[in-house]
Structure formats: structure tokens, C-alpha cells
């Protein structure tokens, strides 16, 4: 399914409601499309345009500005190896090379079985543990060549399912509240709370 389905559409609608202007929900909703489809399908982007009252080109133009959004399919595991300065100084390029050799795919490519996509990324902010990488945006630091191979083994064997959700999943925690303060402005008869605490 390429449009947002029953698991995702309510989340998208609830997200839009959090913002004064619908368009602000663009990035969070595009993340939902990617979570559902693994990448930004044309139908998914068109659905976002519909939800936000924008043209499809506006959604597409915005989405392609951001590195985390893919408009083509990627592997189940997106391996993002940092080569920026702190990692460069600590073997980041060597790690990337190892990853490419080990998985048999050049940066930007996906393994034929569709399991792994390797990409070279800019600093991901784990410089105290360089060289580092993320798999589906979950961090792994101080990665040696051997460490990389065992990471791949663990992923393939499904041993990291807890830590590494499917590609596209940005946030596994759901916001449980809507806009309370805004709702309060509407209704003037808010009862006084006896203490500062809530039950």
C-alpha cells in the first residue's frame, strides 16, 4: 500500500493537528510514509500533498531537500557510515571501504537480496566513538572491521530486532497527548486543581 494506510493515516492526521499550519507536518508525515513504504513512493507523496493541501511538486521539492528521505527503494537495513572529520581521523573511510567489500556493494547501492543499502554520510554526531555508523538510524560506535562483520551477522540473524527497527521507522514512541493548552483556551470553565499535581 502506498498511500498512508489505517495504521498510519490516523497518526498523520493527529500530527497535522499539532501545528498551527498544516504544512508544518510535512517532515513528520513524510517520515510516516517512509516508515510504511520503506521509501517515499509517488502515491505516498501525493497523499501527503492531499493531506496538507499542497501540490505534489511542493511535497516532492521539499522531500528531496532532505537526505533521510529516499524516493527510490532501499534495503531493509540502511547502513550509514560516517566519514566526516572525526571519523576520517579515526578510520571512517577504511570502515566504509570494509563495509563496501564485506557487503559487496558500493556506497549508494543495495545488495542484490535487498537486505543492505550502504551509504556514506556526513557527521552523525557520535564523534566520541569514531568511527561510527547507524543502521536504520540506530547508532553504533567504535566500529572495527570485525565489529562490523558481527553487526551484519546479528542483523541478518534478527538478533538486533529490539534495537534496530525496520528501515524508515523514526520514532517508536507515540505522542499520547494532543494540544491541551489550545483546547483549554476554547473552554473557559477549567476547574481549579486543588494541588499543583494531577492525579
Amino acid at each position, binding site marked *: 500500500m502506498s498511500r498512508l494506510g489505517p495504521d498510519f493515516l490516523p497518526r498523520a492526521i493527529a500530527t497535522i493537528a*499539532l*501545528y*498551527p*499550519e498544516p*504544512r*508544518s507536518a*510535512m*517532515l*513528520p508525515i513524510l*517520515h510516516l510514509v517512509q516508515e510504511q513504504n520503506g521509501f517515499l513512493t509517488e502515491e505516498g507523496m501525493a497523499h501527503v500533498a492531499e493531506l496538507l493541501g499542497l501540490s505534489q511538486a511542493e511535497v516532492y521539492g*521539499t*522531500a528531496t*531537500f*532532505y*537526505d*533521510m*528521505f529516499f524516493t527510490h527503494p532501499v534495503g531493509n537495513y540502511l547502513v550509514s557510515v560516517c566519514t*566526516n*572529520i*572525526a571519523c*576520517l*581521523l579515526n578510520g571512517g573511510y577504511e570502515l566504509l571501504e570494509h563495509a563496501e567489500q564485506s557487503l559487496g556493494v558500493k556506497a549508494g547501492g543495495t545488495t542484490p537480496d535487498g537486505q543492505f543499502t550502504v551509504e556514506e*554520510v*556526513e*557527521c*552523525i*554526531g*557520535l*564523534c*566520541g*566513538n*569514531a568511527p561510527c555508523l*547507524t543502521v*536504520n*538510524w*540506530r*547508532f553504533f560506535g567504535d566500529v572495527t572491521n570485525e565489529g562490523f562483520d558481527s553487526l551484519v551477522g546479528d542483523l541478518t540473524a534478527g538478533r538486533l530486532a529490539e534495537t534496530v527497527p525496520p528501515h524508515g*521507522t*523514526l*520514532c*517508536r*514512541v*507515540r*505522542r*499520547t*497527548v494532543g*494540544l*491541551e*493548552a*489550545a*483546547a*483549554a*483556551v476554547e473552554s473557559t470553565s*477549567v476547574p*481549579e*486543581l486543588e*494541588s*499543583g*499535581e*494531577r492525579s
Partner: protein
Amino acid sequence: MATTVAPIVTAHIGTPDSHTLRGYLASGGYEALRKAVTTMTREEVQTEVDTANLLGRGGAGFPAGRKWSMLRKADPTYLVVNGDESEPATFKDHMLLEEDPHQIIEGTIITAYAIGAAQAFIYVRGEFALGIERMTQALNEAYGHGAAGNRIFGSDFSLDVVIHPGAGAYICGDETALLESLEGKRGFPRIKPPYFPAVMGLYGAPTIVNNVETMSNIPWIVVNGGAAFAALGEPQATGTRLFAVSGHVKKPGNYEVELAKNTFRDLIYDPRFGAGIRNGAELKAFIPGGASSFWFGPDRLDMALDETKVKGEGGSMMGSGSIIAMDSSTCMVRAAWRLVRFFSRESCGQCTPCREGSSWLDKIMYRIEAGDGRPDDLDLLMDVCDNISPGVQWPSRWPPNMTTICPLGPSIPPPIVSALGMFRDEFLTHIKDGACPYG
């Protein structure tokens, strides 16, 4: 010698469950917010932050209190917290977001109270997935605790906070690009004027944009008073600051130190911090304030961590608070190239000099590093840099001039100009030998 003061923003780091409400409450969490909304006026909170002379921790170093006071009076106004940390080798906000989300939320809500914001948005870098999850969880808990939402802690103050994920674009760390991105657009920095979001920000409404670390200082200031904060450091550089130390140090990491009273040497060599250059190597040079800053040689190690000195005497900046140490085994052409390449990849593409200049410089630097450099290239590099940031020179001066809308443009030359200025011979060797001497 490094001073020792109790940490402010990292006080909870390392305590059990520091990212949960339980853990946060155990170390006095949300008492500052309760104090602010139940016993203090907005003005009193502002006064404390003013007295603290808390300089914004995002990189520009503008006093937070003064920024707040510039807020145009209009309805609504917004607070936007910048957690889009993407500057190379900067990883302090990343830690705060994952390890102490409640402190950020508490600081955010106090700030929103002080400035009278209608809603607050915390923009978190998209790649920080765990940080986004922790922030979302913490916000849920905060609402449940009565610290967010309707009538906070029984006061008249109500506020909604939204955790907003980015999606991978360094430029969105620029406050106006961040606002564009938060509006659901491409992260193009806004042209000035208007000069400040405080006048025209989110949806054109007056908006305060503060950094995550800045917000993390607010609860402490409210509890302990602005004067206590200002007593740390020096009058022009008060409080503590979190520095990200990386590169060839023995102990890379985030270290909170008192400003002005400590030096770069302390951060790189003090056993409690960087603990010196590893493998017994020599420090060749270090980058004092993120990828956009001009580099320092070992002769600057004893400069105090004081932005006015780093800019004035050093001609560089502390910027994002990241210090990258490079030892004698480092190819400076390669290091500079990698940073230029970063800017080339992250240029938003609006301004011609940045869009075309960064990719051109990337190509020239790559060519030199790969051994295909030409003698003319060094003058060409300097001239192209000059066309992006007119008057750029070595030794460097701060601030640089610009031909672009945002500071990403003038951020491109510093690695090249620094490397050329300090290590011209390495460039010449690359060109003469037709290869990188470091292999």
C-alpha cells in the same frame, strides 16, 4: 590548570535512568519550572536569565536574555528550540537529547513562560532517532506530570510542546532555515532583513529560537539564580559550557567546563578531559569551534575558552563548542578537503557563490589530494575563497565577510585557508610528488 566546578547541564548524565521522569525527579527535576510558574513573574524569570548573561550555546553566542527582550510584541509568539545539531564533530546536544530530555523540556517550558510563547517546538535532528524517541517519551511524561499542557502545576500558564523531527540537512541548524523547515519547506535560510526571528519568525510571528544546551541551562539558573551563574567564568563569558572533544585525543567526549577559566590545553590534555594526544603523538593543529572555524596551531593551546578572545585575538571562534585535535600523522590537505566536501554536500543551493564555489573547491582540493594538483591551484583556491568570503586571509580575522545569504558561505574557506596558511608545504608536496605523502 583546569578549574573544577559542579556541572550544570551534565549534572544528571550518568545517573540511573537520567532520561526518565523518575530519574529526573530523583535529582530535583521540574522544581525550577514549578518555582517559575507558581512563584515568579515572567519578568522575574527574564531578569534572572539576563543577570546570568547566558550566551546562546548554538554557535552565534548571542545573550539569551537580550534575545528574549527583542521579541516583538504581538500575538501569537513562538518558542523554537534548535536541536538540529549537525556541525561536524559536535555531539553534545546529541547527548543531552538522549540522556537528559526532561531538562531540555523543563528549560523550554520555563523559557516559553518567560517570553509568553503560545506554543513551543523542539526541532530535533532527524538522524537522532533515539533522541527523538526519548524526547517524545519524556514529553508524554511531562504532560502526565502536569509539567506541560493545560495549567502547568496549577498555575495560569498553559503550554503545548511539540517534538519536531528533522530529516537530514545540516543547513537547518541555521535558525531561519530551521524555521522554514519547521514550516514544512525546503531548508533555505531566509534572507535578511528581517534580521531576527524575534521580529518575524515562525509563520511570520515573533519567535525566539534557542539552542538545546541553552535551554538545558535555564532550570539551573532559575533554581540557583542568575548571579550564581554569572559568578562562574568571567563577566563576558559566564557559566559553564559543554565542549565536544574529538579527533586524536585519548579520551574523546563531551566535557562541561567553566568558561574563561579554562583553556584549549585543558580540554585536550587534562586527564579528566581529552587526556592528551594518543599514541604519544604530537598535536599538529586543532579546530577550535567546529568545521566553520579557522584552525589553531599548538601555539594557541593556552588561549582561554572565551569567545571574545578566540574571535579577537585568535581570529576564529568557539562556535559550536567542538574541538578537533589532529596529530602529526594527519594529512592536512585531506582533512581540509573533507570539511570542504561537507559544505559542498550541505550547501542548500540558494546562493551562487556557495552552491558553485563549494563544489568547485571540493573538486580542486580532491584533485590536489589525489595527486593531480597544479602549481596554479593554490592561488586559485585562495581567489575562489576570496570570491565567497571577500578579504579572507591568513592569519585569519573574525568575522569573515560574506557574499551569501547565510554563514554557510563564509564557512567554506576556513579549512582551506587554515590548511594553506599553516601547511602550505604539504600542498606543494602533493603537487610536486603527484601523490599524497601520507598515503
